[in-house]
C-alpha cells in the first residue's frame, strides 16, 4: 500500500510543474493588459505605464517572470494579488474553507440521496419508481443553477420564511472564525443559536450545489448496479436465499461502486474549484467567485496562484479516490 501511495505521489511532481506552467501562461495568454485595465477610462501617461510595468516585473521576458514565480513557489510564496495587494496565499486560505465546507455538504447530500435512488431505480428497473427517479434526475441535471437557486430562495426564504436568504450565518452572531469552517467555529463559539444559524444557512446552497452531482450519482449508480445485478454471482446469491437487502446492498453495491466513486471523485474535484453561480447567489465567500473576479481584472498572481492551489487539491482528491479503489477492489492495489 505504501509503495502504491509513493508511486502516486511521485507523479505529483511533473503534474505540479505542468500545472504551474499552464496556470502561469493561461492568464497571460488572455488578451488584456492589467495595467491598462487598472487605469480604466482615466488612462495614464506612457512614462507612468512603463514605471508600473517595471514595478510589477511585467517588462521582464516571460521566461524570467516564470522563473521568479517558480522561485517564489519553492519558498511557499504565491506573490501579492495585483488587485487587493494582499498575499495570494492569505486570500486563498481565507476563502477556501467556505468552499470546502459547502462542497462537502453538497457531496454528502448528493451521495446520501443519489446512491439509494440509484439502487432503488436499478432494482425496480422499468417500473414506475425507476422512471420517476430517473426522470427527476434528468430534470435535476438539466436545471439551470441560477434559476433553481432563486426559485428556492423565493419559495423557502421569501414565501415560507423557513431559511435565510444568503450568507453563512446570521449577522447577529459575531465570533472569531479561526478554522474558517462555520459549523466548527459557530459550535466552538458557544453562542446560543450560532450553530443552528450556520446549519440553516447551509441548507439551500447545499441543495443547489448538490443537485447536479446527485443526479449524476443516481444515474451512474443505477447503470452500474444494472450491470452487476445481471452477473452470475448475484444470481447465485439470490439462489442461496440471501435477503434482497444483502444481495443488493452488499454483494451488488460493493462491486458497482468503482464507477460511482470515480464520478464522486470527479464531482468533488469540480466542487472544490468553487461553484461560481452558487457562491454568487448565496453570497458565499468561496474561491470560485474570487477566481472569476481575478480573471476579469487580469490579476495574474491571484489567478495563477489560485489555479495552482486548486490543481493541487484536485490531485489530492484523485489520490484519495485511487486509494478508495484499492480498498474496494484489492486487485487494483496489487497492480
Amino acid at each position, binding site marked *: 500500500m505504501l509503495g502504491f501511495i509513493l508511486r502516486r505521489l511521485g507523479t505529483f511532481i511533473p503534474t505540479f510543474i505542468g500545472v504551474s506552467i499552464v496556470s502561469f501562461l493561461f492568464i497571460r495568454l488572455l*488578451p*488584456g*493588459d492589467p495595467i*491598462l*485595465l*487598472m*487605469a*480604466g*477610462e*482615466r*488612462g*495614464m*501617461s506612457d512614462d*507612468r505605464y512603463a514605471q*508600473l510595468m517595471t*514595478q*510589477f516585473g511585467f517588462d521582464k521576458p516571460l521566461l524570467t517572470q516564470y522563473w521568479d514565480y517558480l522561485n517564489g513557489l519553492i519558498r511557499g510564496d504565491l506573490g*501579492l494579488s*495585483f*488587485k*487587493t*495587494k*494582499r498575499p495570494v496565499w492569505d486570500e486563498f486560505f*481565507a*476563502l477556501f474553507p*467556505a468552499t470546502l465546507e459547502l462542497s462537502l455538504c453538497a457531496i454528502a447530500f448528493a451521495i446520501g440521496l443519489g446512491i439509494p435512488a440509484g439502487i432503488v431505480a436499478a432494482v425496480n428497473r422499468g417500473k414506475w419508481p425507476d422512471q420517476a427517479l430517473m426522470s427527476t434526475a434528468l430534470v435535476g441535471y438539466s436545471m439551470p443553477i441560477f434559476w433553481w437557486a*432563486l426559485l428556492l*430562495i*423565493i419559495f423557502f*426564504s*421569501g414565501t415560507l*420564511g423557513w431559511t*435565510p*436568504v*444568503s*450568507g*453563512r450565518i*446570521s*449577522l*447577529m452572531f*459575531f465570533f472569531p*472564525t479561526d478554522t474558517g469552517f462555520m459549523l466548527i467555529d459557530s*459550535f466552538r463559539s458557544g453562542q*446560543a*443559536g*450560532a*450553530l*443552528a*444559524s450556520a*446549519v*440553516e444557512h447551509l441548507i439551500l446552497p447545499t441543495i443547489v450545489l448538490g443537485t447536479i452531482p446527485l443526479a449524476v450519482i443516481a444515474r451512474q449508480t443505477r447503470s452500474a448496479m444494472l450491470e452487476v445485478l445481471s452477473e452470475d454471482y448475484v444470481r447465485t446469491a439470490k439462489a442461496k436465499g440471501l435477503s434482497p437487502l444483502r444481495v443488493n446492498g452488499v454483494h451488488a453495491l460493493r462491486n458497482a461502486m468503482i464507477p460511482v466513486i470515480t464520478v464522486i471523485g470527479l464531482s468533488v474535484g469540480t466542487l472544490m474549484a468553487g461553484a461560481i453561480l452558487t457562491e*454568487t*447567489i*448565496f*453570497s*458565499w*465567500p*468561496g474561491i470560485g*467567485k474570487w477566481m472569476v473576479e481575478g480573471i476579469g481584472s*487580469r490579476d495574474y498572481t491571484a489567478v495563477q496562484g489560485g489555479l495552482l492551489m486548486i490543481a493541487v487539491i484536485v490531485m489530492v482528491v484523485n489520490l484519495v479516490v485511487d486509494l478508495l479503489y484499492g480498498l474496494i477492489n484489492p486487485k487494483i492495489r496489487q497492480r
Partner: protein
Amino acid sequence: MILNKLQLLGLAAIGIAMSSTSYAQDTLVYCSEGSPEGFDPALYTAGTTFDASSRQVYNKLVEFERGTTVIAPALAESYEISEDGLVYTFKLRSGVKFHTTSFFTPTRDFNSQDVVFSFERQRLADNPYNLVSGGTWEYFNGMSMPDLIQSVEAVDDLTVKFTLTRPEAPMIANMGMDFASIVSEEYATALLEAGTPEKLNQEPIGTGPFKFIAYQKDAVIRYQAHEDYWAGKASIDNLVFAITPDNSVGYQKLLAGECHVLGYPNPADVATMQEDDSLTVLEQEGLNVGYLAYNTTVPPYDNVNVRKALNMGINKQAILDTVFQGSGKAAKNPIPPTIWSYNDATVDDEYNPEKAKEMLAAEGVEDLKMKIWAMPVVRPYNPNARRMAEVMQEDFAKIGVEVEIVSYEWGEYLKLSRELDRDGAVLLGWTGDNGDPDNFLAVLLGCDAVGNGNRAQWCHEPFDDLIQQAKVVSDQAERTDLYEQAQTVFKEQAPWATIAHSVVYKTMRNEVQDFKIDPFGGHIFYGVSLAK
C-alpha cells in the same frame, strides 16, 4: 458519540427557533455589492473600496456636504489660498480623536504630522510606506498630484501648507477625494516598528464616524460608531456591510429584513419596489455622462455641420428605452446636472432625421460609411454599449449612413481609442471624481488631453481658453460663468453626441431615515438613523 450527535441535533433545533433574523434597533445592515480590495483608500480606485474605508472610517481635510458636490470643512476648519494661487494653507481642527480599537490605542490627537504623512507616502519614493502593499497610488497619480504638489509642510501642529507648481482651482475639490483621506501617522509608525506596515491596509485607524471592527472577505464587514467623533457620535451604534453580490438576492434580503439598504437594485425590480409599502426608493442622476466621440481630426467629422447632422440622426429616446430601460436620462451637456455650473440654457440637438439628411447632403457627404466602437463592458453610463451601437446603426441607416460596429477587449479598447488617427466614433463615458466641472471638461475635452482622455481629439481654442482660465480662478461665481460659456461652445461645436446620464436608485426599508444619495456614487451612513 450518539449522545454527541443528539446534543448537536438538539442545539440545532433550539437554534433554528431562536435565530430568526432580528437586529438591534441601533444596527444598520447595508447589502453591499462586493468586497473591498482593502481598507486604505489611497491604494485603490473602486467605489466599493471607498464605501468600506474612506466614507466610514476616514476623514479628509475638506469633504462634500452629504448628498451634494459642495465642499465643506472637515479636518481642516478653514483654508487660505495665496494670491498667486500657489500656496494653500489649511488650519486644522483641534481635539480630533483617532479610533481606539482592540488593535491600536492612540496617544495623541490628530495633527499636521498626519496630514503630511498621508500625502508624503503617496508622493515620495523614499517614504517607507511608498511601496507598502504594492502601492501604486493610482488616484493620486491619475489626478496629476505628483506634478502639481511641490511640497507639503507642517507649519505648526494645526497648520499645513501645500505649495503647488501651478495654480489649480480644483485643488480644494481634490482634497475632498478618497485618496486624500487622512491616516494616522502614529499608527503607521507603530506598524512599521512592529514589522507589519501592510496592516494599515487591513486594520484601518481613522478619525471618521465609524471605527473598523472586523472583516470576513466576501461575507461581512463590521463597524461601530466612533464615540468621540468630532462632529458628534453617529445615530446608529453598529454598521454592518452584508456583502451580497447578486442584486436579486439583495432584494430578497431587504424584504426578509436581513438588510436595511440595498445599494444597487436591479432597474427591472424598481417598479415593484416602488409599489411596496415597506420600502422607500430614492433616485438621482449619477455623476456621469455617456457619449459618442467623433474623431474630429478626420474628414468628414472635422466638419461641425456633419457632426451636428449625425447628432440629429440619433434617437436618444429609443436608446433610453431599450438600453437604459428607465435608468437613464438624456444628456445635452458634457457634465451632469448634479455638478455646479451645469448650463441648463443650452439646447440639445433635436432628433430630426429628415433635416439631418439634408444637412449631410448640403455638406456634400454621400454614402458615408462609419465605424462605431462599442465597449465590451458594462459601465454605469452605458449598461449595454453593443445594443446602443445597434440602435445608432438603425438610426444612421435612416439618414443614409452605413455603420459598422467594432469592439475590442476593454484594455485594448481604451488604448486604441486614444489614437489620433482612429477610424470611427467611440462610445465611452466618464464618472466624475471630485464634482468639479474641470474634472469633466478639461479631462475629456481639453487640448492637453488630446491623444489621451479626449477621445474626440478635439482641440478648439475658444473652448480651451475658457477652461484654462477657469482652472486658475479661485472665485466660484467667476468659474461658473466660464464653464457655462464653455458648455455653450461645446454644444455649438458638437465634438460628441451626448447620450445619457445614468439614473441611480437606492432602495431601503422604511425605518431608514435621512439616507441621502451621494452624487459620487458612495454610500455614507453618518447622518442616517433608524426609526425606533
